[in-house]
């Protein structure tokens, strides 16, 4: 019921956090879809996927994480709450996976620009982004239901 009774001072930080999270998830959906479709399309969608991760997912990750820290400081939420632990865990691992997936998408694009086929790199990158989306689904559950 926290969402119903939260203080006004939390609203703007929460807006930044939620907007960043939604844009992050949206960019990841676009990136993984472009990666999958690129198998039969080639360079255009691979470029789109790489740019979506580099110029979309990474900046929105920063907005999401910055907003999360801001909300936490305004709410004075306890560090040992399970839902905060889930959020930090998914976020920290998500950043690492995002960097790896972006690098792999970049290598796939470079290979495509040289006339090569996407190969396994595109598949691994798509699998990593899919895993991230699953993780963010769990984080959304934790943020909305706030398990103790």
């Amino acid at each position, binding site marked *: *019921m926290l969402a119903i009774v939260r203080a006004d001072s939390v609203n703007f930080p929460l807006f930044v956090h*939620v907007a960043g999270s939604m*844009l992050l998830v949206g960019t990841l959906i676009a990136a993984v879809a472009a990666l999958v*479709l690129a198998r039969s399309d080639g360079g255009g969608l691979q470029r789109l996927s790489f740019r979506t991760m580099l110029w979309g997912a990474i900046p929105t990750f920063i907005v999401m994480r910055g907003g999360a820290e801001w909300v936490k400081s305004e709410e004075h939420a306890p560090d040992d709450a399970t839902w905060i632990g889930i959020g930090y865990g998914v976020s920290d691992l998500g950043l690492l996976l995002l960097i790896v997936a972006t690098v792999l998408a970049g290598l796939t694009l470079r290979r495509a620009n040289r006339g090569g086929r996407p190969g396994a790199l595109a598949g691994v990158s798509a699998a990593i982004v899919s895993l991230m989306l699953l993780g963010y689904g769990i984080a959304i559950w934790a943020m*909305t239901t706030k398990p103790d």
Partner: protein
Amino acid sequence: MSRYDWLLFLHVLAAFAAVGSVVVFTPVVLAARRGGGAAAGALRLTPLARRLWDVGGAGTLVLGVWLAVDVDQYDLLDGWVLSALVLWAVAAFAGVRLGQVLQGGDDAARANLLYAVTAAAVAALLVVMIFKPGA
């Protein structure tokens, strides 16, 4: 998990799908504006964006109304709920038409306008949902 938890989780998840749809529409609209061979690839994302919009739009409306009816502190006639319903109607109309225009592959200028209306309505919806003005 209580019924409120389930409703809120699924409502927020649907909102993520709706915003995700707008994000997926972005490169499609940009590609349609440029035209040429590169546009053909990006246009293949249109069906995904449309399905996300269908799921997100229906989910946010049904679960949002359910929440407003189920939670004692909310009422369907609250100003912020009514404004959200109006914004949802604007976003739903523009989003569905945007998908149709892009799938049809015609009139990039109209797609730009519909995209702008959809994105603005969704952004305004998020503001209303977070700030709940008048609640």
